[in-house]
């Protein structure tokens, strides 16, 4: 009888042991200063997550090469969020356990919600790299900060920058957008305000980002023939959309994306070249006048062999914001002090196309903004606002 019970005992004992071992984390106050990074490194968003981490590494190396934080080196501790809520929560807690003084993440809004709650509970500051959902900072959390423009900021930018690309003969507008939080959020916001500018919304076409065909949507768009087409979506689905439009030779008067995952991407241009000339996008971008941005672009290309994806710029800047706070605070090992230092950030030298990086009381970057990019001769050119415009050589 005893013999048969053994396997279960052994299994149970081993499991308990393994779990206890996995929980051990080192903590040292004199060595490196650790910053945690929670991003999806497996699954459908692995490419985006990895790019984010790559850009963060460039920032870390830059700071360390310049002497670190008052002589102490920075270390990025990376953990896969698995793209799920529970994965992100476990990852964030594992990082707080290994002694990080700040967290960064998470690329998706649902994970960001979970990690910001973790940050609040563990009292460790979180700087959001990319997660655009509007309600992210509506909790009154003290420990969450966001540099990137939210859904409503992007939408407001769109309405503001419209004066650049709108012409008086434009009467109708149609939206085609992926149906999650981000696509729906932007499409809803813009469409409910665009009529003030005298445009009539003739179509709202939502599709799931995982779709394998947009053929019927494109047929409907062709029939609607709007004066202005606004596509919002991720890289693969928006590339699919353009492929369908180009293959059928349908011509739209004007296409202006908003935070479009494809239009502002270098890979997109490599695929379509000058075929997509004349398309606009309001999106993340680096500041073309910043020397530091040039350094970031060159280093990324050198190290990883490709152009930095635009969202990853915020990964780079998140590390810079935290490093700036660490340099200013009395005790860089105390997350509370780091939090207070981040809250009082006032960063004038940065890579983003915006004014000073400064957070309001909810943790939102008050000057966050996107820029209007036009594809000209197979290249991205910032055309608006004027102060960040690329000036042709």
């Amino acid at each position, binding site marked *: 009888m005893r013999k048969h019970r053994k396997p279960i005992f052994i*299994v149970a004992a081993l499991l308990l042991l*393994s779990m*206890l071992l996995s*929980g051990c984390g080192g903590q040292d106050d004199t060595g490196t200063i650790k910053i945690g990074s929670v991003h999806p490194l497996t699954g459908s968003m692995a490419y985006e997550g*990895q790019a984010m981490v790559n850009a963060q590494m460039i920032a870390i190396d830059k700071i360390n090469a310049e002497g670190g934080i008052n002589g102490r080196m920075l270390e990025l501790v*990376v953990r896969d969020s698995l793209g799920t*809520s529970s994965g992100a929560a476990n990852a964030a807690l594992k990082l*707080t356990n290994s002694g990080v003084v700040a967290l960064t993440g998470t690329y998706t809004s649902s994970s960001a919600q979970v990690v910001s709650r973790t940050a609040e509970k563990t009292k460790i500051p979180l700087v959001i790299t990319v997660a655009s959902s509007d309600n992210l900072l509506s909790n009154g959390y003290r420990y969450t900060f966001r540099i990137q423009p939210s859904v409503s900021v992007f939408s407001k930018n769109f309405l503001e920058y419209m004066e650049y690309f709108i012409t008086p003969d434009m009467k109708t507008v149609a939206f085609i957008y992926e*149906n999650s939080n981000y696509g729906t959020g932007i499409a809803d916001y813009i469409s409910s305000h665009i009529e003030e500018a005298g445009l009539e919304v003739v179509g709202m076409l939502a599709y799931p980002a995982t779709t394998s065909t947009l053929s019927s949507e494109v047929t409907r768009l062709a029939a609607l023939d709007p004066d202005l087409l606004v596509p919002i979506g991720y890289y693969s689905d928006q590339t699919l959309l353009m492929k369908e439009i180009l293959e059928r030779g349908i011509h739209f008067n004007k296409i202006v994306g908003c935070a479009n995952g494809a239009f502002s991407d270098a890979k997109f241009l490599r695929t379509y070249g000058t075929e997509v000339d004349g398309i606009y996008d309001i999106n993340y971008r680096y500041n073309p006048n910043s020397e530091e941005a040039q350094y970031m672009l060159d280093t990324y290309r050198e190290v990883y062999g490709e152009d930095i994806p635009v969202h990853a710029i915020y990964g780079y800047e998140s590390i810079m914001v935290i490093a700036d706070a660490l340099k200013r605070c009395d005790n860089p090992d105390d997350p509370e002090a780091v939090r207070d230092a981040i809250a009082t950030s006032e960063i004038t030298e940065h890579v983003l196309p915006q004014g000073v990086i400064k957070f309001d009381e909810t943790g939102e970057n008050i000057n966050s903004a996107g820029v209007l990019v036009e594809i000209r001769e197979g290249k991205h050119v910032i055309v608006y606002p004027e102060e960040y415009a690329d000036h042709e050589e």
Partner: protein
Amino acid sequence: MEGEIVVKTKRVEQGTLLILLVIALIFPLLSERYMLSVGISILIMALLGQSWNIMSGYAGQFSFGHAAFFGLGAYTSSILYIDFNISPWVGMIAGMCVAALVGVLIGFLSFRYKLRGDFFALVTLAFAEILRVLFNNTKALKGATGILIPYKDAWKEFQFANDRIFYFIILGMVILATLFIGVMSRRKFGIFLIAIKENQEAAGSLGVPVLQYKLVAMAISAAIAAMAGTFYAQYYGFIDPTVVFVSSISVEAIVPCIIGGAGTLGGPLLGALVIIPLQELSNNLFEGINGMNMIIYGVLIVLFVVFCRDGIYGTVIRRLKGARS
């Protein structure tokens, strides 16, 4: 002879459960936040596993769509809480009722048209997908934006700053579900369910009210999944259709049963206790090699399906019986 084996099996079962209970009770005292969070992940999976176990393990009605019930639970309590300020505790009960009703509806429609096995599984999968699309596109149900549960530390709000309380709540739910199944499986109800699984026609011809029992099993199973859903929403603080109605949740209900042993009392518990720590452990050991956890996960499932069909628990029991015969 036969009686002796039954007694022995029973002892092993009780022994295992007792050990698991002791581990579960000591565990939070030894661990800090990260370990607690892992513990909570294990227990959520165990609860989902037990829910699946009733309907699919005992009654043999294979479901691929437990995310439907999980999501309904999460959404019912969250909408009642956010829009009507009803305590999530009450919302949880409401969610369980909604899920049970939907479960009965799905069951009635499927069994009425004599769907079985793979076809029934596909119908459950379809229902989960329909709900996901429905919730994603209905503004009144918060659409794609999802629901954010505000964080307030209070019992009434089902919110705690101390994760240990969350741990003990989900542990309590798992214990309740396990006790319920344990008692049920020894009574007429459980025996009828197993009879239905083994041979529906034979059971029916011997007077087992097949449809009625299958529907009740579905209702109970759905209600337990909904309970897990409410807990998930309250603990993680955010739900949207792509979080709760996705097939990965349905898979999370099935996998612990496959690894641990479907149709056994301790199976889903052991399964969850293997999978999540393994995932975390591989994440810790292979830092920098992304996806290692997935590879291990995949290999493990293949190995179990090929070599250990009854799961850990089921295999032990079978060996025990086999040793004598």
